[in-house]
């Protein structure tokens, strides 16, 4: 051992080419220095990078006295928050926190309550609405909300003509006899006019001073992409595209002060990552996109509260009666009987869904009206399918709704079992929105979850079922149904409108072209100690102003 060590020492003591010249050694050493420094810097950077991440906590009372932070996530940024442009869905909660309309709905119900209007009267011919406005309301820039501001906001929205501009398309003119009286003249009677005012997409009010100051060449559309000019309980303090948004409570808000003073929204496309962040304590609430498995898992976890709220949000099966095998009414009825809504609901939505017992979406007609419960019997379809020469059927769903993909797969399975040759295709929302009026572009079957603009049955019948409906995906055309819908729209009393819609419901139900399979619920998970509030017309978010710690 000692000999070997001696030999190694001797070998090391031999002069080598490297250390033959002290000058060269010094040069090499100098040359190496920056590399060594660089290496050390890189290693220290990496070591620091791999250090423990800071875990912030929030959700309950925290931060400075009286300040409370709520952290949420959305999978996408959504459209510009400018209320004259916005017609998205994922950011309903943001919009309702920033901007207000004349009326809103009470909690998770369809009951209409005043927001910036205290009351209104309607002329005998139904063409003139006179609104008494709420006094003492301020925009986020500190200027007062009054009738002139209301007229300015609606005129701007009509001029820009984007978003849900159809809600103001019937306005003929507006008057402002005094600062707190706003008079609207309509071109024709419209029974949904007040319902429009409660919609997240409905007409909202913007500060004329802010819009004028930042008008540019587009009526402040560019400026309002990253700022706000509303009267809502929160004001937008930052919006970084595809990264984050922050809203702070508006000190001059006319209503009750919200408990949460700051709302931070992170844009996190991957829901699994959101779930990990919620469990890690970096998020306080997840209000959309959770899978049935996620929801079931959170339900049994005592560190979280999982709640399910009703929404005007329904999954429909739509058959294309204009082409292919579903021109045959008997076959359509057989498909309706063959598909088990319970199976589809449980498989696609889990605890966040229930089987509908009415033909219209939740909350549109009183319980018991337009009852819908087709008997489940696949044998009729099996018998009819065996005689078909062409058994091919295409089922399409939008890629943006994973639950619809799952529902489509379950529809496919049941149709295959009955003898049809069904295939499932995913499409994007934009393509699907282009189908109305183009029945040859639409598939044989569409599976789609729709959240309606208002809780008025007109929002469903007129947009989705009437021949000229802008969202009549499968281009259904039933002239008798069209006439009934028109009659309901011009009815002079709510009772007449309701009974007419019921008659129309029966007609469409019997046509087996469109029917509901799931009433979707908003499944919301929050850290324990947060009491979330919800609005019926917002299936994806929470009501920030009403959410509290408790």
């Amino acid at each position: 051992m000692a000999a070997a060590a001696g030999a190694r020492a001797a070998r090391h003591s031999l002069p080598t080419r490297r250390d033959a010249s002290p000058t060269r050694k010094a040069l090499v050493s100098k040359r190496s220095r920056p590399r060594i420094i660089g290496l050390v810097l890189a290693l220290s950077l990496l070591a620091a990078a791999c250090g423990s991440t800071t875990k912030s906590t929030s959700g309950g009372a925290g931060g400075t006295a009286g300040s409370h932070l709520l952290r949420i996530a959305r999978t996408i940024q959504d459209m510009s928050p400018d209320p004259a442009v916005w017609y998205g869905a994922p950011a309903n909660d943001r919009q309702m926190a920033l901007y207000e309309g004349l009326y809103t709905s009470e909690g998770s119900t369809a009951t209409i309550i005043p927001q910036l209007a205290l009351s209104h009267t309607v002329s005998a011919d139904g063409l003139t609405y006179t609104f008494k406005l709420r006094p003492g309301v301020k925009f986020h820039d500190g200027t007062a909300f009054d009738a002139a501001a209301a007229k300015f906001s609606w005129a701007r929205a009509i001029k820009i003509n984007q978003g849900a501009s159809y809600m103001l398309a019937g306005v003929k003119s507006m008057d402002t006899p005094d600062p707190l009286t706003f008079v609207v003249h309509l071109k024709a009677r419209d029974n949904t006019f007040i319902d429009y005012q409660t919609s997240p997409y409905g007409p909202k009010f913007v500060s004329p001073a802010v819009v004028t100051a930042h008008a540019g060449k587009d009526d402040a559309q560019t400026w309002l992409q990253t700022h706000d000019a509303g009267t809502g309980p929160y004001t937008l303090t930052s919006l970084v595209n595809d990264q984050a948004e922050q809203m702070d409570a508006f000190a001059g808000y006319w209503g009750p002060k919200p408990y949460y003073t700051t709302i931070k929204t992170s844009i996190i496309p991957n829901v699994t990552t959101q779930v990990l962040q919620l469990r890690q304590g970096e998020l306080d609430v997840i209000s959309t996109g959770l899978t049935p498995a996620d929801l079931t898992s959170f339900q049994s976890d005592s560190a979280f509260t999982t709640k399910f709220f009703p929404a005007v949000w329904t999954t429909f099966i739509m058959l294309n009666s204009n082409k292919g095998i579903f021109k045959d009414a008997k076959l359509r009825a057989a498909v309706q009987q063959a598909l088990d809504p319970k199976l589809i609901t449980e498989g696609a939505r889990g605890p966040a869904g229930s089987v509908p017992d009415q033909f219209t979406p939740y909350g549109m007609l009183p319980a018991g009206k337009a009852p819908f419960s087709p008997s489940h019997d696949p044998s009729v379809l099996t018998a009819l399918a065996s005689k078909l020469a062409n058994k091919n059927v295409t089922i399409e769903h939008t890629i943006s709704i994973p639950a619809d993909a799952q529902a489509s797969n379950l529809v496919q399975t049941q149709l295959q079992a009955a003898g049809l040759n069904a295939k499932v295709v995913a499409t994007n929302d934009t393509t699907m929105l282009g189908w109305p009026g183009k029945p040859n572009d639409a598939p044989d079957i569409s599976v789609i979850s729709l959240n309606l603009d208002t809780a008025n049955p007109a929002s469903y019948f007129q947009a989705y079922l009437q021949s000229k409906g802008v969202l009549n995906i499968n281009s259904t055309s039933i002239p008798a149904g069209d006439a009934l819908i028109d009659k309901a729209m011009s009815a002079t009393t709510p009772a007449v409108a309701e009974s007419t819609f019921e008659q129309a419901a029966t007609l469409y139900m019997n046509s087996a072209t469109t029917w509901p399979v799931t009433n979707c619920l908003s499944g919301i998970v929050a850290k324990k100690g947060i009491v979330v509030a919800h609005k019926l017309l917002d299936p994806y978010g929470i009501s920030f102003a009403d959410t509290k710690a408790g």
Partner: protein
Amino acid sequence: MTTFVLKRLASLVVLLVVLTAVMFLLQRVSKTDPIVAYLGRGATGPAAAQARHHLGFDRPLIVQYVRYVDDVAHGNLQMSLHTHHPVMDDLKTYLPPTLELLFTALGLSLIGALILGTVSAMRLPGAGLLRLVMVAGAAAPTFLLGQLGVVFFYRRLGWLPATGQTSRNGVPTGPTGFLVLDALFSGDWPLVMDAVKHLVMPAACLAIGPAVAIGRVLRSSLMSSMDADYTRTARSKGLRESAVVLRHALRNAASGPAQMTGLQVGFMFAGIVVVEQIFAWPGLGSYTVGAITNSDFPAIVGVSLVAGAVFVILNAAVDIFQAAADPRVALQ
């Protein structure tokens, strides 16, 4: 060299013109109405007609194409249908984070490849295990790797953040657009650390596949270089094995791995879409997903043009590096 650069620039222009034409035709044969993409559910009646005229979709096809090419030549990539911003402005916002991620991943993959290639070629202890780990990592799909990374390094260990570019608000936005560099320039060391922490996991996910691909080519090139006469001569002069490898064999073996690096950049661009989704990275990948799901063709074309340009430029850089590393390789 000048001729080479000019030729590459010319090929870049041809590529971009072809890409533009293909994307334009794709948009026109698609059944998707761009006005529906622009206005969403509100695309009806006068609103749709007004928007169609405003965006020029009511003009003859040839007029639309000429106008489009003219716009592109003047740096105007038209209006994004889903963000309602000029596509050029969107690209200015979304491209820097993607390039920061891409360059970091490229750097990591080259370091990984160098370690894997040299350690395997020199048959150092642990080479087998290193190869096994890296090949296993490269075999895993990127989305799975990303998800596992989040579960282990964020959820279990708490070492790294799961999402975004930084945890901070109000970060500097210039001069480079690369957050780590901008934070360095502004002397904000906590932000540098925070930005590096956010970069590590997505960049590593993106880097591991290319690292193995490049490393394997490097290994075989190195092994043949190490059997070459000049290596034997270097050894016979008494140089240590590490010096033989680093100074002589590695330079001669660089050509193959450099070519592979050029190819891998394309794969990295494809992987970035998935990685940015998992890690909520605010880059071109996230923008592309939004553009595709909304049938936003102007945005899709803009992204395609940028991706094509980056690919061509990086491959030209690889060719120049190859020629510099090995004078036998002429720039043609």
